């Protein structure tokens, strides 16, 4: 479908080349390209979205087929924002538009979105790789004022990523680089550094002049805005898509963005700065489609939604249930499963009360075929999950020689094979989708704390810990993080269902009761473990000991493994 071309005149009289696709009666999506691109960078995304949206793109001033401002002042952000509103008014009079922007397009769209009253003209804003310069000014200021090691690291990292901005301020040299070589080499730069396959029509034939003129964008705006940032909050719902392999815009830049954007949705995409649009156009289109549908339906009043899908196994009680609720409270859609469907359904009901609608399934994680079927079902009903929490597990106590073959089988089937099946089924889905994700495996402090009474249990959990380490290495290129959680003594019903080797039913009940009492007295709530799990997904921390005893044992195991080996002989566990 070839776009319909028209010209819209900016407030100061420059002609802007506007390209329209799709049904004008459908919701309007307005796309703003970055530097040194033109509207053509959106080809794939626009093609996909045009099926059910009125898609409008334009060449920003100085680029492609649009007019060129006379001087540097013509590139100031206020003009660029005015252009956006002019195009929006022309193509969608009286109806707010959904803005999608990338790179410099994103910077100028922020200027429009943070304009007072912008929520009347802009229904939603999806931003890729481009912060608001005012917000960034405050971001820098906050970090220079409080130079904690973490802040300094963030400053240094962003500084290293932004070297080209300084380079663009160099007179003569920057334009000359584009003129004499860089423009010609651009396809190779995209291929080698960004992973973008060369294709016909890309980059645009006007690249050389676009790139040279666009340098003025940096020179006109960077220094003045960053030096004297203005307070710019916005009521517009914003979807921030973080590109995990972006070489220019760091993840840390969006830290604390909620201060300015109360209605913020965070998504992340396993892509580089340009491959997001040129290689994964349909994925970006999907994110935009989901967001426009949600904001278009006026869902502002409901519980917050972050658009993520989280699957939790063994979520009928304890840590699993608490984790499902914690993710739901964050606004994630939650799918839970458990052997006990009634308990899982209850968790889903509670999750739906504190967050978006949740769903429950009955799954035996030790059954590989069942987990595969579950993964297929989830993908079909709800999509590919962004987070998988392999939580289902059983407790077992008994020395090696007491533990029967069946007991070994059961413990390994649930605790180890359950995790293997989960990682295999959902890990495959995640890698195939290519948007990254996170897998959380529930190991245990027993994974590194030997005890003669926990032979089978500790073995299964140690295997989960090592499995997580290996899997992390394998899935890293796919942008999928893996965390192993080692809770320690947490007050859940695992103690009430723990089996004991070599005892009668009555003795077992008594032992279960004693263990439950001990765990209750320790009183560490599963909600705190859930909070750690949510945090590990955010930070990507590989191994997370949770309670004090879990942390102490891990430290002790490193300082003096012999001591732990000796303690393993004690009759505790």
């Amino acid at each position, binding site marked *: 479908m070839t776009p319909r071309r028209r010209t819209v005149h900016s407030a100061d009289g420059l002609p802007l080349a506007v390209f329209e696709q799709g049904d004008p009666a459908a919701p309007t999506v307005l796309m703003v390209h970055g530097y040194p691109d033109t509207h053509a960078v959106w080809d794939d995304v626009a093609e996909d979205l045009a099926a059910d949206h009125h898609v409008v793109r334009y060449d920003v001033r100085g680029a492609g087929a649009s007019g060129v401002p006379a001087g540097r002042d013509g590139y100031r952000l206020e003009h660029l924002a005015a252009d956006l509103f002019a195009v929006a008014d022309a193509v969608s009079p009286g109806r707010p538009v959904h803005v999608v922007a990338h790179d410099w397009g994103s910077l100028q769209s922020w200027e429009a979105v943070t304009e007072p009253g912008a929520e009347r003209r802009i229904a939603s804003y999806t931003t890729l790789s481009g912060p608001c310069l005012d917000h960034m000014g405050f971001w820098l200021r906050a970090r220079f004022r409080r130079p904690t090691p973490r802040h300094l690291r963030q400053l240094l990292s962003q500084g290293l990523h932004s070297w080209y901005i300084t380079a663009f301020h160099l007179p003569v040299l920057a334009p000359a680089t584009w003129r004499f070589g860089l423009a010609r080499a651009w396809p190779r730069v995209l291929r080698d550094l960004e992973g973008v396959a060369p294709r016909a029509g890309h980059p645009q034939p006007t690249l050389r002049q676009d790139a040279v003129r666009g340098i003025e964008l940096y020179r006109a705006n960077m220094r003045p805005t960053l030096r004297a940032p203005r307070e710019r909050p916005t009521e517009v719902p914003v979807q921030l898509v973080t590109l995990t392999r972006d070489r220019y815009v760091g993840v840390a830049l969006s830290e604390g963005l909620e201060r300015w954007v109360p209605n913020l949705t965070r998504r992340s995409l396993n892509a580089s700065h340009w491959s997001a649009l040129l290689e994964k156009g349909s994925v970006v289109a999907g994110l935009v489609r989901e967001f426009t549908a949600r904001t278009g339906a006026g869902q502002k009043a409901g519980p917050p939604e972050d658009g993520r899908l989280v699957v939790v196994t063994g979520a009928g*009680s304890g840590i699993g*249930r608490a984790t499902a*609720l914690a993710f739901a409270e964050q606004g994630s859609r939650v799918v839970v499963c458990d052997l006990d469907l009634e*308990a899982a359904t*209850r*968790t889903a*009901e*509670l999750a739906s*009360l*504190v967050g978006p609608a949740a769903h429950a399934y009955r799954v035996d994680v030790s059954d590989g075929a069942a987990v595969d079927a579950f993964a297929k079902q989830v993908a079909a009903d709800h999509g590919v999950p962004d987070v998988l929490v392999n939580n289902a597990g059983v407790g077992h106590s008994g020395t090696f020689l007491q533990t029967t073959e069946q007991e070994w089988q059961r413990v390994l089937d649930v605790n180890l094979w359950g995790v293997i099946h989960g990682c295999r089924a959902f890990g495959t889905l995640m890698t195939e989708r290519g948007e990254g994700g996170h897998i959380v495996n529930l190991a245990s402090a027993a994974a590194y704390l030997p005890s003669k009474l926990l032979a089978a249990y500790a073995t299964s959990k140690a295997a989960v810990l090592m499995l997580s380490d290996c899997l992390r290495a394998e899935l890293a290129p796919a942008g999928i993080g893996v965390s192993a959680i080692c809770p320690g003594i947490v007050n859940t*019903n695992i103690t009430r269902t723990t089996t004991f080797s070599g005892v009668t039913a009555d003795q077992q009940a008594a032992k279960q009761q004693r263990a439950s009492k001990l765990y209750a007295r320790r009183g560490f709530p599963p909600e705190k473990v859930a909070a750690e799990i949510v945090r590990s997904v955010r930070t990507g921390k590989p191994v997370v000991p949770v309670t004090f005893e879990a942390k102490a044992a891990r430290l002790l195991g490193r300082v003096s493994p012999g001591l732990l080996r000796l303690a393993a002989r004690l009759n505790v566990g």
Partner: protein
Amino acid sequence: MALATAPRPAFPFTEADLGRFRETQQLAYHCAEQVAAWIEPGVTERQATAQLRRRLVAAGVEDFFHVPFAWFGDRTAFRHFHTPLQFFAGGRKLEEGMPYVLDCAPVVDGYTADIGYGGKVGENPLWDRLAADLRVYRELILREVKARKPLDEVYAAVDAQIAAHGYDNRHRVYPGRVIGHQVTRTTARGPAGVNLFGFGVRTLQTLGRELISERLHGRSPLWADGRASRHAPTPGLWAVEPHIGFRDVGIKFEELLVVTEDDAYWLDDDLPHVRRWSTTAEEASR
């Protein structure tokens, strides 16, 4: 075992006594409902308890088993409670969508009632869910007591139900972790209307006497999950107050349970929360 063979005391009340207890409980719930109708955003906990006390006194109440309490917002779930002083009504203002709990224990002519009333202002879907689920606990407790299970086992059964529901046990925040306590006709002579630490002086006299005499029989007038409650329900009247919480919402009911020598029943079924369950059940069946 000495505890098991201790003679079970006879049921100490006549039908007329029970009628008076029922009247006092009705009066208390009636006043709580009046305050609930009056309450609105902006009211503080102290204003609510003052209002409750005024209405109770106007209705003829002479003394209080304990001072009236009111908890708003996350205080209904006793979040961030570190000292018993935090139970007392404070300056927390009611806001739209907040849950609240009123708790009062009027004494009329020695007949004591101890009631808990949960409510909300505006919309609160979490509260609706908890309020509906509270019914399960009323039925569960009666079933277990009828079966003459030891009180600590009933407590554990309530705990297991709370865990299954995914809520948390908030009555364990009460002093002594009690889910209930025995109520008798106060006959003490101390000054009426005077309280110490929130409990009426007459209450403390009676309770102190009860604690000692019951202890001698291996029983306790307080119902908790410890060793002291490892006995079958003592015949008499028990004020039972399961208090459940989820996130920042807490709800309870508190009413009198009649335990006779061989049976048990709730003193009165014509109470606001019971009526609410039957209306929601009717709506659901419609």
